[in-house]
């Protein structure tokens, strides 16, 4: 049987776990960007969405916990795997070059651990600011998340950090989505190439989408003239 830790502790099991959690995080990002995009429709729509999600959803604490667990497992497993992989090649090459097609190696794939750790830091800042930041009441019920977002992204340095982090998200997903597909053992001569391409498209959509939102928020601070997108 598999080694002591059981099914998910082997190299293949680890990969599966990282793939599944990564894929779930990707799905979460899809929902997240959909919700955030409502900001373009003004405070009423945006805050109402937040109100429904937060107040009318008894499962929210469970979902939050699950999301946290998924994220932590993903982070913990990858870091541990990264460290183990380092000891698999104790003596480095004096010269090492990418092998070219059909390798899927890219800058993105080579920096997963860096982009991942960056995102860990980003998320701590991000969650602190939005989940645990100052709260304002919205007269129609719930928080005034719109105002919170406006305030959080009023600082140009913060906006820059956000935009940079979204590039990192894009990079992480650029390899990550395709990688998850492979990690889950999905493979078909016709569908796999399409799936891999779709993954890259999604990576770009998510990264660029969030960037646009951040930029839009910065450029549409209350008091400033509204900029149309």
């Amino acid at each position, binding site marked *: *049987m*598999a*080694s002591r830790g059981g*099914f998910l502790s*082997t*190299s*293949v*099991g*680890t*990969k*599966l776990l990282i793939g599944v959690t990564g894929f779930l995080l990707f799905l979460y990002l899809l929902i997240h960007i959909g919700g955030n995009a409502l900001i373009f429709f003004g405070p009423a729509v945006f805050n109402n969405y937040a109100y429904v999600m937060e107040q009318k959803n008894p499962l929210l604490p469970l979902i939050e916990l699950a999301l946290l667990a998924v994220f932590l497992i993903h982070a913990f497993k990858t870091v541990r*795997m990264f460290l*183990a*992989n380092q*000891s*698999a*090649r*104790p*003596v*480095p*090459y*004096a*010269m*090492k*070059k*990418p*092998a*070219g*097609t*059909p*390798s*899927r*190696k890219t800058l993105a*794939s*080579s920096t*997963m651990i860096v982009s991942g750790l960056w995102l860990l830091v980003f998320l701590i800042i991000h969650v602190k600011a939005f989940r645990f930041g100052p709260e304002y009441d919205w007269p129609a019920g719930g928080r005034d998340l719109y105002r919170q977002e406006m305030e959080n992204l009023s600082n140009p340095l913060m906006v820059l950090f956000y935009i940079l982090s979204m590039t990192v998200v894009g990079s992480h997903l650029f*390899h990550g989505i*395709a*990688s998850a597909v*492979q*990690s*889950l*053992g*999905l*493979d078909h*001569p016709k569908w*796999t190439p399409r799936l891999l391409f779709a993954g890259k498209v999604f990576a770009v959509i998510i990264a660029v989408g969030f960037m646009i939102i951040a930029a839009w928020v910065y450029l549409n601070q209350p008091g400033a003239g509204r900029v149309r997108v």
Partner: protein
Amino acid sequence: MNLKLRIWRQAGPAAAGRLVEYAADHVSPDMSFLEMLDVVNEGLTKKGEEAIAFDSDCREGICGTCSLVINGVPHGPDRGTTACQLHMRRFKDGDSVTIEPWRAAAFPVVKDLIVDRSAFDRIIAAGGYVSVNCGGAPDGNAIPIPKDVADLAMDSAACIGCGACVAACKNASAHLFMSAKISQFALLPQGHPERHRRVTAMIAQADGEGFGSCSNEGECQAVCPKEIPISNIARMTREYVKAALLAK
């Protein structure tokens, strides 16, 4: 043409190694890469200096013995070839060529460019076979196997066990090697009775040998002299999941 070589020299498993420069002069473009090294070695031998140790045997790309990382790529720049099939016409006068051994904790250096790949044998010993004793086999045509299945199994079975996949992988993972054998037996009906035991045992063995995990970069499939694709690794994952879910 004349070349400048930088070659890894290491006296023994415990000794420290280093890159040493050699000149390869009057190299003919028709020479194979290993013949170029033969000529350098013959020069060294005549001078009473120790020859550069490197592994090779069949010199036609099937035995899987040769194992050189040439200018940063296992088996060198050509696709679908072993180092022994690489020819010097691929290089030009004045080129500098760095030659290193496979590098992996599970492939310790024995001497110079020679590594110990017995970990691969132990992975096969863990389950890379069909347990049939000699003698009791049914007629060869007793179980028909669709041609496309047999062909796909042959694609996987073409692995020569050279270890280039491990050498190229940033994690020194043996997943492509293992998955090729697991795929062959997952595809063929003869492999089915033991499929669950096989996949778990082989993965456990590879992990225990100190090979790394897989990051799905696919450098392995790009350097594989038999161009074995990572779809085998996906198949291995499916086999593994099935084994875990269906094991009693």
